[in-house]
């Protein structure tokens, strides 16, 4: 080529301004939220005026009451039991529902839509509300807490696992269909193996969530450490509360290590 041919550039993709519009909308919403008329009541003055009220509580929290330790053991064990049982039951219920909720493993849009709607409803109700209602229905103790946690777990696991199934390769499932398998057989023999890592990861994650959530559920009478937290908080025993928080921290760290070990073996 003797002369350089003029470059013919392809037309630029349209819609490049969209990210900027998105940013502008986020900034606008933030501004509205902070504005005195329409926003949340929020002022920095309050921090300046009140921070000393909290200071003595922080001071107490920094001095855990170690002698309180023996009394925390039974509720701590109960919290762990609730978390483990709820995780197990939640996982067992979630596995078939996850396959039911994904398009690749359930081509019927009506049954899939019905399940998804139900799960959205389950997820939109806070676990604390489940616990409050269940305490009224089945009485104070670990049982309402476990049921509340199971509902909470199913909502999370099914959503996350079914969404991960949607992005899995459809090819192996097509091979199962071509070989004359029923949808149930294909799901069990093929889809399940591909969904397994997501399922294990989500299950281990909800185990950790359950330990923390079951401490809160106790506040409404649903068993575990929460009952004790409520008691010591009522008497302003922040030194005892501090010990409980430390114990939860230790448990969460231990569970994190245990889940990492389990994940290495199962995935």
């Amino acid at each position, binding site marked *: 080529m003797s002369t350089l041919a003029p470059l013919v550039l392809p037309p630029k993709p349209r819609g490049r301004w969209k990210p900027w519009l998105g940013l502008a909308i986020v900034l606008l919403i933030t501004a509205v939220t902070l504005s005195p008329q329409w926003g949340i009541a929020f002022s920095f003055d309050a921090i300046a005026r009140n921070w000393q009220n909290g200071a003595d509580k922080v001071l107490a929290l920094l001095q855990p009451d170690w002698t309180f330790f023996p009394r925390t053991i039974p509720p701590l064990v109960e919290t762990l039991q609730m978390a483990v049982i709820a995780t197990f039951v939640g996982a067992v219920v979630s596995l078939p529902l996850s396959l039911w909720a994904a398009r690749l493993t359930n081509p019927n849009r009506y049954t899939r839509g019905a399940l998804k709607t139900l799960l959205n409803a389950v997820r939109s109700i806070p676990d604390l509300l489940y616990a409050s209602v269940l305490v009224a229905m089945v009485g104070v103790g670990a049982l309402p807490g476990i049921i509340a946690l199971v509902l909470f777990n199913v909502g999370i696991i099914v959503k996350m696992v079914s969404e991960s199934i949607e992005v899995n*390769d459809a*090819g*192996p499932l*097509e*091979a*199962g*269909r*071509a*070989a*004359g*398998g*029923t949808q*149930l*057989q*294909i799901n*069990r*023999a*093929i889809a399940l*193996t*591909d969904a*397994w*890592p997501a399922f294990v990861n989500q299950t281990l994650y909800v185990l950790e969530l359950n330990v923390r959530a079951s401490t809160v559920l106790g506040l409404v009478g649903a068993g575990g450490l929460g009952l004790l937290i409520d008691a010591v908080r009522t008497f302003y025993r922040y030194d005892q509360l501090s010990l409980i928080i430390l114990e939860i921290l230790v448990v969460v760290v231990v569970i994190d290590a245990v889940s990492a070990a389990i994940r290495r073996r199962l995935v």
Partner: protein
Amino acid sequence: MTDLHDSAAAGVHTSAAAPWSIRMRDVSVRYPNGVVALKGVSLDIEAGEMVSVVGLSGSGKSSLIRTINGLVPISSGTLEVGGRHLETARGRELRQLRGEIGMIFQGFNLARRASVLNNVLVGRLAHTPTWRTLLGLYRAGDVRIAYEALNSVGILAKAYDRASTLSGGQQQRVAIARALAQQPKLVLADEPVASLDPPTAHGVMRDLRRINQELGITVLTNLHLLDLARTYGTRLIGLRAGEVVYDGPAATASDAVFETIYGRSIQHEDVLG
């Protein structure tokens, strides 16, 4: 690529004595998005034939092969496979028909995290009650068939390995074993070597030819490479824009024939070498 061992193959395929023929009459396929993939295709494929289906991507050859086991439903026309009408088959009847038709895919389509053996056992699904699959309790006879199918493609030693740990060529042989485990009357292969390097591709094509020659199974293979189509097929069907533009012997199909099918001159990408 290891040869299909005669004894093992004979053990697996006692039922392949009666391979299937295909009768297509005026078959059209229109997808829900309005794309017309096949326009009035009529074909007679006799039992035991080794057919190469050739065309550029978008010519409808993938749709053609997928209508034959009902993965793509036909919009009009009639389709008889092994003397049974496929276009009206539903539910259990369709699954039983599919159970007799092995299929091999370009992307192997193995469950990557499952063992090689469990992938091959997918070929037995149509012959296994659902409760057995759910519990993972395969019949000893089906497991035996799966082992023999793996042995016949020379990778029995990999039976307990995870499918994803195998090379591309080995994975395609697992997929062939999965099809063989169906004890099929007909094997469909959709671009089976497009993801493989040339020596491996020839090995897989030789395996398909042996399935046809030694077991007598009807084999339809989609290809876009003219030398593979000439070498391994006995009959060549050319598709262009959803219509059959050539149907004749494969070995003697000239470059001019391929230029007709492709609608352009032959390029070096059209040959594997």
